[in-house]
């Protein structure tokens, strides 16, 4: 069919397609650096886990992923709607290796791999950001290195939390927005928007970054206005639409699915597992004045020169009209400011990790000083160094860095840390349940507020009934008839008040529900890890509770 001429011409046409002009070293060096860096973070993470330094939230995500694949009711929605779903989604393939590599779950290994890869990618984004601003090698390495070796960043690179993926995505979005400010290509705006959309699937603060980016786009377009206002407003509106489109999609999809599957569109804010409920229940809502002092102390430890840096960076930025750097500050600065404000106002916990964006704000943000040459480089190096020293000292403090101090302890002394997450007693409970003669047909009813630690240690996650199971409502109402033989209960104090069993069967922990028998007690080091396993002897209902003696009091105390 094909004529000779046509065929010859066609082949010539195919030959003219040229490969991308990218050298081998241009691919190998970054890839090697990425693998090396991620490997380092991963090793540190393994060391943490070996010493028992495991954060509850990170382990909880891994357990969610485990429920998706190996739970009693395996389905994707078991991923949960309290945390952003992306880290958990990415952990799925790693959790699938649970058979040959149990530590992927029991030590939260899947989370550690996830966060260390994202951390290495974040450093790469910082480096590329600098290079694309035409920064010399020294500047670029300093900016990226200041992020890579900061102790706070290292800890979160290595512990499976969502901080490092979030920083990575923010940097990627900022990088694209900076490129847009220089080239004004719509595709860069699209890429920035997509990163923000991805960001929302990690942490909801991506909305704040989106707001910062929108302000930036509006500002830049107004200042560089090239046409009549009416037309320019159309351009800005379209640009904002492109920037926010993916974020809105992420938001709508997540909220929509959450509403459809759990009946609550804003589970990360409203549900009994969300921050607001936890704050209310644990009663740690502090006075704003105290919070302000706490946050200020943390801030000045992360960046001791903050008092000088903020006006300095702002001054240079305004003086030089450096729009690319302004894009960076719009994205990361807005998130940083939001965290500081909401912590000070007491609407969220005062957690040092919420301030992690300060690290790249100092080191990558220092690129604004580039016009000052060597002096600028020296100032930046000094800022990074003092910041690292301040962070190092701060991290050792139980008061200012309660969540990070165990990791720091491991890094400094190499000693095992006290079991803050209650994994020892969780393992005890898991082992005990597995040793029971009732076998695989005996289900254990639990809630995941605390129950995730037990789920992480068991080899039979499919024998647990957890809130993400689609028949949880039915099972908790008629547990015995549904095959449940054990109830895993926690003390009804603090966050334990939110425990589904405590709420449905008030007095359960105190043994005030008839037809149950206290079968096992695991007292950990601390109060939250205190477990009581009740064996079900027959059908129970909230109405069958004993109402005598101490049980009466126990019931009255409950909501």
């Amino acid at each position: 069919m094909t004529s000779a001429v046509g065929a010859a011409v066609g082949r010539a046409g195919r030959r003219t397609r040229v490969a991308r002009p990218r050298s081998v070293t241009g691919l190998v060096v970054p890839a090697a650096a990425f693998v090396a860096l991620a490997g380092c973070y991963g090793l540190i993470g393994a060391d943490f886990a070996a010493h028992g330094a495991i954060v509850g939230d990170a382990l909880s995500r891994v357990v969610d992923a485990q429920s998706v694949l190996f739970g009693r009711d395996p389905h994707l929605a078991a991923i949960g709607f309290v945390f952003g779903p992306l880290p958990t989604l990415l952990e799925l393939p790693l959790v699938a290796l649970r058979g040959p590599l149990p530590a992927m779950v029991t030590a939260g290994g899947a989370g550690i791999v996830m966060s260390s890869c994202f951390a290495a990618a974040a450093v790469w984004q910082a480096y590329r950001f600098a290079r694309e601003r035409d920064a010399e090698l020294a500047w670029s390495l300093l900016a990226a290195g200041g992020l890579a070796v900061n102790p706070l960043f290292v800890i979160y690179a290595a512990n499976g939390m969502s901080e490092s993926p979030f920083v990575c995505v923010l940097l990627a979005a900022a990088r694209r927005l900076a490129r847009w400010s220089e080239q004004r290509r719509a595709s860069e705006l699209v890429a920035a928007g997509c990163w923000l959309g991805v960001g929302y699937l990690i942490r909801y603060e991506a909305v704040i970054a989106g707001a910062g980016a929108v302000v930036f786009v509006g500002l830049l377009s107004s200042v560089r206005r090239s046409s009549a206002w009416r037309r320019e407003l159309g351009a800005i509106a379209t640009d904002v639409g492109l920037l926010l489109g993916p974020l809105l999609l992420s938001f709508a999809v997540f909220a929509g699915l959450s509403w459809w599957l759990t009946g609550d569109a804003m589970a990360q804010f409203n549900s009994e597992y969300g921050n607001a409920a936890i704050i209310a229940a644990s009663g740690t809502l502090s006075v704003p004045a105290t919070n302000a002092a706490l946050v200020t102390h943390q801030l000045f430890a992360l960046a001791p020169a903050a008092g000088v840096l903020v006006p300095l960076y702002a001054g240079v930025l305004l003086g030089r009209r450096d729009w690319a750097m302004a894009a960076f500050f719009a994205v990361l600065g807005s998130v940083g400011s939001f965290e500081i404000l909401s912590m000070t106002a007491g609407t969220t916990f005062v957690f040092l990790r919420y301030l992690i964006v300060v690290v790249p704000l100092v080191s990558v943000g220092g690129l604004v000083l580039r016009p000052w040459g060597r002096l600028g480089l020296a100032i930046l190096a000094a800022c990074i160094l003092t910041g690292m020293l301040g962070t190092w000292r701060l991290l050792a403090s139980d008061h200012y860095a309660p969540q990070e101090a165990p990791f720091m302890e491991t890094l400094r002394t190499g000693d095992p840390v006290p079991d803050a997450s209650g994994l020892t007693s969780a393992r005890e409970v898991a082992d005990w349940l597995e040793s029971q003669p009732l076998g695989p047909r005996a289900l254990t009813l639990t809630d995941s507020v605390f129950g995730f630690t037990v789920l992480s240690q068991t080899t039979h996650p499919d024998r647990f009934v957890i809130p993400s199971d689609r028949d949880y409502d039915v099972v908790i109402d008629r547990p015995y008839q549904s095959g449940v033989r054990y109830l895993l209960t926690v003390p009804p104090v603090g966050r334990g008040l939110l425990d589904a069993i405590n709420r449905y069967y008030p007095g359960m922990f105190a043994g005030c529900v008839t037809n149950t028998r206290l079968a096992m007690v695991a007292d950990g080091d601390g109060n939250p890890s205190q477990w009581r396993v009740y064996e079900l002897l027959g059908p129970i209902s909230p109405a069958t509770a004993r109402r005598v003696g101490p049980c009466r009091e126990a019931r009255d105390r409950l909501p």
Partner: protein
Amino acid sequence: VTGGEQTTGAWRARPQPPESDRAAALDAAVGRLRDASPELSASVVLVRWQAAVLAGLAFAATVGLLLATAITATVLAGGLIALYVVALVDRGSVVARSLGQGRVHTAPIDEPELAARLPTYTILVPVYDEPEVIGRLVSGLGALDYPPELLDAILLVEEDDQRTIAALDRLAVPDWLRVLLVPASEPRTKPKACNYGLEFAVGELLTIYDAEDRPEPNQLRLAVAAFSAEPETACVQARLDFYNDRQNLLTRWFTVEYLFWFQFFLPGLAAAGRPVPLGGTSQHIRIDALRDAGGWDPFNVTEDADLGIRLARRGWRVGVIDSATYEEANSDPINWVRQRSRWYKGYLHTWLVHSRAPRQLVRDLGWRGAGSVLLTIGATPVLAAINQLTWMCTLVFVLGAPHGAARLFPAPVFYAGTFCALFGNTAVVYVVLLSVRISRRYYLATAALSYPAYWLLMAVAAIKAVWQLWLRPSFWEKTAHGLTAGVAEPPAGEATA
């Protein structure tokens, strides 16, 4: 001859070719492709095995739905969703490719040596029963920046089209435009008229315009530059755009659709070296390549898309040039549905023709090219037709949550379907908005955001198309032109609304 202004009926001064030539040309116009490569001719809709397969599938689906409803429904839903996912991912990759390195020729040509070697250019202008736009023709094409002595512009008028001939008589036809009267015969399609014109064309390059088209003046020169830069390119497609884009919401939607199609999609396909379905007009072709490919298929109602694939199958490349031709967008919904259903019918027909010998198709285009023909030509009308159905199902599923419906969707099918419903729909609106941004025509942003409503019209057209392919495969549903009265520019001829 009715009385006109100056040189009334001047076009009659130039005689038509001798009767024997006309008859031979007509034979070639109708039969050349059908006789030379019957397997590529659309004179037949389905070959035997295709009919057998389709009938078998329909039978199996019916029996399956009657006997094993749940399983059959699951398989059908799974198949459709799989098609959606693949088409979606494929289109996404084309758009990404286009964003990365759109293969559009923009080089202006002012080098004297190239200007000295400009080839003769044939312009075919087929008209049928459109006296109201014939007056605009001269002003539209007269603006082209090309030496008149190198232009071979041919107006193709059906011999028995009295209204158009009468309108011509009232007009001062310039020297560079000759009128060919196409002998009346079936099939009465635009490609047959073009084939007839091709027999008498003397140019080295050839292009087609509709009578009401307004090409940008530099277009022919840009095409010449593109051809001399790339000898393996047989055809370059100019961007189609509309001059009445602000007329109403429908023309805005149509414009937005064209922005996407010609700015993103076709350049992306061209960059990937995949077959490019050509647009209806403003395709610039090397005349020898066109003759080698057998001209247009007179039985295909989207001969342009078909030609793009046939050129690709012969090893030629198709490029895209950054020059616009302004057309009249269909501003009337009924008229729009007629036009769109013809396109969809032609797309389906084209795909059926090219998939008659699947192994040969794969040999000519490779697996990717053959898949591309399926996804860009075949899937377009099919997806448009079932879009509403899937939307409705989604709505029922989410809001009504019918008992047992969940069992019809095993997890992978369910997740893929959710992905399509949520991500697919949004992505299309988003990309359309992006086209608006890149073209800097912000007044179209609302049309981009309300784009899903446009799909309703598409669905109507697609269903009509399938129906018509069954009953009247080669019937050319004429689009009424001249509906733009009072918009943009007053037409030269009298306009009917």
